[in-house]
């Protein structure tokens, strides 16, 4: 039976079934051309095996490992971001909400000049407030008492409302030296532009008018009048209950 060159090469490589191998062996025994083909196959195969040495691949190995390290690094970062991105976003959001809540609930903060300006124009006037000023102020602040002495002043008008999201009261009054505007804002610790003047009092200005400020519990209070700072400090002492 005639065999092909492919079968002879496969025979040399030990890749034939026993049945095919038997056919090739028979052909090799009978045909010089088949033997020559088999010898040629062995010759080339042996030549390659003997002459082609392994190449030094240490540099390529190190560079390949470096590439895999970079890939691992990128994967780790991607995995971390992918796995925790929602957690990060949720944490940031929770922090913002919590901080806002804490600030809202217990935050004692500064009142900026721009917000202070709205104390003089944007509040609602209470009717008959001069008859029970402390009661009106307590009502405006939701039950919080402000320790001031209304009898020290001739109260003409009381207005209430909100400034910078905080409950606020404005009181127009007079004393023997002239008109006074008293403002009270919940949760304000310091009025912008006011500096400490000792004895828990601070002095400053609003639209060129001198003012004196202090805190009474959770409420920041400021009195404005066209008079010298020393007079304002004395006025504050007169108005303050303690």
């Amino acid at each position, binding site marked *: 039976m005639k065999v*092909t*060159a*492919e*079968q*002879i*090469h*496969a025979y040399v*490589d030990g*890749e034939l079934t026993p049945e095919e191998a038997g056919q090739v062996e028979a052909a090799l025994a009978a045909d*010089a*051309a088949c*033997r*020559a*083909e088999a*010898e*040629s*196959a062995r*010759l*080339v*195969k*042996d*030549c*390659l*095996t*003997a*002459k*082609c*040495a*392994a*190449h030094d*691949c240490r*540099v*390529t*190995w190190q*560079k*390949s*490992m470096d*590439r*895999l*390290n970079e*890939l*691992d*690094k990128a994967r*780790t970062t991607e995995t971390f971001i992918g796995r925790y991105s929602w957690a990060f976003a949720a944490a940031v959001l929770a922090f913002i909400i919590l901080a806002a809540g804490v600030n809202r609930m217990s935050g004692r903060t500064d009142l900026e000049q721009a917000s202070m300006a709205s104390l003089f124009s944007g509040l609602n006037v209470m009717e008959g407030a001069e008859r029970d000023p402390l009661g009106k102020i307590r009502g405006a602040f939701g039950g919080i008492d402000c320790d001031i002495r209304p009898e020290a002043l001739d109260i003409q008008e009381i207005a209430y409302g909100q400034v910078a999201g905080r409950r606020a009261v404005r009181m127009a009054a007079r004393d023997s030296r002239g008109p006074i505007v008293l403002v009270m804002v919940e949760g304000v610790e310091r009025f912008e532009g006011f500096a400490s003047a000792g004895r828990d009092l601070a002095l400053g200005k609003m639209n060129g008018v001198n003012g004196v400020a202090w805190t009474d519990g959770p409420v920041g209070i400021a009195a404005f009048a066209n008079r010298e700072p020393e007079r304002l400090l004395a006025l504050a002492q007169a108005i303050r209950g303690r």
Partner: protein
Amino acid sequence: MLFKRGNPQRERFERMVSPCFSSVYGTALRLTRNPDEAQDLTQEALVRAYEAFERFDGRNFKAWILRILTNLYINRYRRLKRTGTAGSLDEENAIEPTAPVEEIPDRQLFDRLLGAEVEEALAKVPDVFRIAVILSDLEGMSYDEVAEATEVPVGTVRSRIARGRAILRRELEAYARAEGYLKDDEEDDE
């Protein structure tokens, strides 16, 4: 190393690739015939293999990674070739080098050839035949493994190996003749 530690998949991949890395690089070098290209091809094959490692079926890692390498070479590098062997993937156009009995050279003549000369002769074998011969004769892969690596039937592998060796034999003879190991007149006398 920071990310390597505690990465079982990476450690497992390295354990599997380490024993056959010289085969991967050697095959890349014999396919591209250029050290820089071989290095790029090897790195690219390793990255592809690493990325696809979860899909490795666990049977024959060497055949699997060499399949990635040869596919990369065929798809990417062959297009770049502008040498005389470009387009050598076309099997139909390959010459049939079956030689008469009297042309089979003496084994001692091939023994005189240097390794570099054999490598150069191998480089002249068209791609598809060269790949099959490299995987079979140099990497010791079975026909089934070569078939898996090159994604062709075993019958095609048989054909490619036989024809590849025949072409290589002709090239080796040419080198032997050029180097004076085999003289035309001697051959004629025989």
